């Protein structure tokens, strides 16, 4: 009898251990937690340090790799021009994101609601991702002109696939229990979609959106390279042609900062909207 009690106790301890170790890990994490701003500053400083030392050690000429300071000077000196072009690219990215999200959601819903359509749409979907954006860019220029529209469509096209697949997967993999529960409550097909399937797919959709936010700038800038009269991509191309490598780097810096900012803002918003996500 005593032996059994001891066994039970050890079982109890075994059961508790994961929770306890988790708790320990959590407090560890909290203690080691560094403010994200501090982290950003540290990593920026490290990168600038490496950059500067490469320039110094290898004695890079400024038309191959300009020193960080020269780029910052250029950044301040030309801030008006840079800002104007940043605004254009930012708009292209944001509108491209919205268009791509809308299209992805729409297609995913079509595939969910009308099963046979899926087999027809799938090749189209894959083609949209398999053809390099550079290959269709000239065609889009031809059809939509040199303005913003062609870049928006480019950005939308490049995020279309991840958004659609994530959204479709999210909609398709609703936990069966939720569906059963709603069905026993007498939910119709539309009510299931509206109250169960759509909200349940949000965490999966969110990971699609996170991917989309990072790759959408590729579409926009690639579009600007192929043909445009404004935007950071256009500016970089011009600067490169005129051997203004520091200005090109300035544009590059802004573009990365823009992407990082966009990602973190999106991440913050998504976490706020979907607090139950893992």
């Amino acid at each position, binding site marked *: 009898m005593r032996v059994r009690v001891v066994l039970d106790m050890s079982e109890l301890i075994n059961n508790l251990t994961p929770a306890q170790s988790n708790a320990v890990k959590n407090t560890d994490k909290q203690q080691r937690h560094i403010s994200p701003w501090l982290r950003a500053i540290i990593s920026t400083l490290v990168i600038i340090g490496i950059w500067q030392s490469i320039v110094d050690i290898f004695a890079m000429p400024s038309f191959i790799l300009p020193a960080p300071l020269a780029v910052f000077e250029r950044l301040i000196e030309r801030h008006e021009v840079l800002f104007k072009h940043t605004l254009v690219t930012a708009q292209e990215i944001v509108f491209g994101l919205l268009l791509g999200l809308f299209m992805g959601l729409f297609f995913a819903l079509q595939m969910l609601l009308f099963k046979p359509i899926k087999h027809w749409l799938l090749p189209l979907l894959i083609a949209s991702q398999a053809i390099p954006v550079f290959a269709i860019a000239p065609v889009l220029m031809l059809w939509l002109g040199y303005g913003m529209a062609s870049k928006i469509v480019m950005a939308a096209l490049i995020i279309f696939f991840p958004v659609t697949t994530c959204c479709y997967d999210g909609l398709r993999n609703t*936990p069966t229990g939720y569906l059963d529960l*709603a069905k026993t409550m007498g939910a119709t097909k539309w009510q299931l979609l509206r109250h169960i399937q759509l909200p349940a797919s949000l965490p999966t959709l969110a990971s699609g959106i996170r991917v989309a936010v990072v790759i959408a700038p590729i579409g926009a800038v690639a579009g600007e390279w192929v043909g445009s009269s404004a935007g950071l991509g256009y500016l970089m191309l011009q600067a490169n042609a005129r051997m203004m490598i520091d200005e090109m780097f300035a544009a590059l810096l802004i573009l990365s900062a823009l992407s990082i900012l966009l990602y973190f803002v999106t991440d913050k918003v998504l976490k706020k909207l979907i607090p139950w996500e893992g």
Partner: protein
Amino acid sequence: MSSSPQVILAPTNSKDTIAVNITITNGYLRYHDSIDPVLSQLNMTMPAKQWTCILGRSGCGKTSLLRYLAGLLDQQVTWSGEYAINANQQVLADLNNQIAYMAQQDLLLPWLSVLDNVTLSSKFGGKMSKSASKVTSQASTNKALTLLAKVGLADNAQHFPQQLSGGMRQRVALARTLMQDKPVVLMDEPFSALDAVTRYRLQDLACELLADKTVVLITHDPQEAIRLADQIYIMQGTPASAENLSVPTSATPRQFDAECAQLQQQIMSCLAKEYRDESEDEDEDEGESGVGYE
């Protein structure tokens, strides 16, 4: 077909008078994608306003039976045999709109607050919700708050499910079930994931609050069945049929006494019989469909 009797049943204020009893005679159930039936020669009575507990080993078809009763398998199975539902002398064709379903997982929707989870059924259409929509949403909120107070969670109405413990979540699920206010409650091991004391308390609570419902409870725990059942069925065999065991006449939830111990012995030997001739091939159909979601 089934709509006309339901209209008669619609007045919800007279819920105490709706008493549904279910009789299954010579029931047979087979999934469309399988050759072998899951259930056959099934005879069962689920009397009105009583707790019917169904025991049986995993995969024997208990969950299939419950899901069939819940109307969740209509597209997937062939059913034959007599299946009679009596509600206040009315004969119903099926249990649509008459049941509330409670599963092993609490199935609380993480994007809704506790209160919204409890009132979830008001979002969904059908005949009952039309009559429910006459009642203002304020009234249904009040009712939900009363029910939450009954299960001891009045202070947690605005919380989200992920902020609650497992026991609290299952109590919210109980409140949601009560909110639906259906004459039949189908429960698939609703207490099995809880620790012993929480389970005990929740059994008492459910027993008190579901006293006027026809309850069908699937469980793996003989003690749970003995505490709560007005009658016990043991499902066994491939395909499965059901065997009725007599239960002490004392009021539920029962204190464990000698009679209960004897019944437990009987249940255990009944269940063990099934394991002894296990050499037969496994039943693949149910596949723990009640457990494997998450």
